[in-house]
């Protein structure tokens, strides 16, 4: 859910960005972090705990607690709360410690 009216802040209309969440095309706005874009879409579960696979969302939003880590463009353990959304990003839910990826 996005704020439409606010007594102090104004949120200007921003450019829409399309990206992929677990393979499905969705939209966010320029200036969003991956986590805020997903949240606006109602997606709260961003990662899973390693041992018990419990669902996890973001907690600190300052890139510290690692509970929002996801796989972004093939790279695991990306802190989605401090990573800006980019057009066509491939964002995936992470369920393990994360695999090492190949850059080409």
């Amino acid at each position: 859910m996005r704020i439409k009216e606010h007594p102090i802040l104004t949120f200007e209309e921003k450019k829409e960005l399309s990206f992929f969440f677990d393979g499905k095309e969705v939209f966010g706005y320029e200036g969003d972090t991956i986590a805020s874009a997903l949240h606006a879409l109602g997606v709260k579960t961003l990662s899973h705990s390693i041992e018990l696979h419990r669902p996890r969302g973001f907690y600190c939003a300052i890139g510290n607690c690692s509970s929002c880590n996801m796989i972004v463009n093939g790279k695991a353990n990306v802190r989605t709360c401090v990573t800006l959304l980019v057009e066509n990003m491939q964002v995936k839910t992470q369920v393990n410690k994360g695999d090492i990826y190949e850059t080409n």
Partner: protein
Amino acid sequence: MKQIDLVIIGGGPAGLSAAKMAAESGLSSLIIERDFKVGGQLVKQTHMFFGSEKQYAKTRGIDIAKILVNDVLKYPELIEIMTDTTVVGLYKDKVVTLLQNDKYIKVQTNAIIIATGASEKVLAFENNDLPGIYGAGAVQTLMNVHGVLPGQNVVMVGSGNIGLIVSYQLIQAGVNVLCVLEAASEIGGYKVHASKLKRLGVDIKTSHSIKKAIGKEYLEKIVIGKLDDKWEFIEGTDEELVVDSLCISVGLSPLSNLLSMIETEMKYVSYLGGLVPLIDKNHETSIENVFVAGDVCGVEEASSAIVEGYLTGLVVAKKLGFVHPNYDELYLDFKDQLQNLRSGPFGEKLRLGLEEIMR
């Protein structure tokens, strides 16, 4: 390896102010910030600050951030800023390793100011890891920076200033705040903030806390209860509330882990929020030319973080041979401002805590 006079870790109010004062003295510096923008915690604070003129009282936090950033941008030849860059290693010979875009970069420096701030504490209760349970500051970022709401029905745990302010801002953004829970028998934050909430009909439940969270994939309900004077739940006082979000605001702890990498002398001081370095009157740690400023050496406020930044920037510059033309005057003024900020009954615990870390 890149050679830098002064490396400043963290681009919050403390780090930015340190860079400004160093530059005024003629010393160049590099600010390293892991977020994609500088400003630290200030970038989400829409409320007006307390304190005195000198620390921008009556100005909103977001506007103070702009002032501090503009100050730094006035010295493009002296201050370099690297955002999206995390300091991941610190060595005793003053080599700093940075991680930027999957690349490690090594920097050799003469002095370091660590201004990494603090992170929000978590609270232990059943299912405290469910999505929908956030730090209060995290929700503030989501709302005030990104314009996204955490949910529709929220309960706040903790009635310190942050808990009270963020509750108010949730209401401003259109969220229903069911109540604020406070384990102590009295409200923790300033009366003005509490009164604003009460006027809006928010119940601040003292001697109450969260017992457990309920939900499968995300938070659906919470159980709260009344506490006795030993902070134990009183049987038969359970109450179930339907919420989609829960904010935890039970204090911050200093992000001091980088200091441990160079074996800085540290001490656990609960009044300061956790593990903090021992410092001398100029904020120098037990390692020569490694300084600290802001929340990392004791959780306080943006106002004191700014002044501590100025003070360390001024002192470091002098140590490296760049003496500010008004050094003596500024030094006394900064010391004086810090003392004023910490005076009065609200500053008591802080004063005791700071005494414990003086070298």
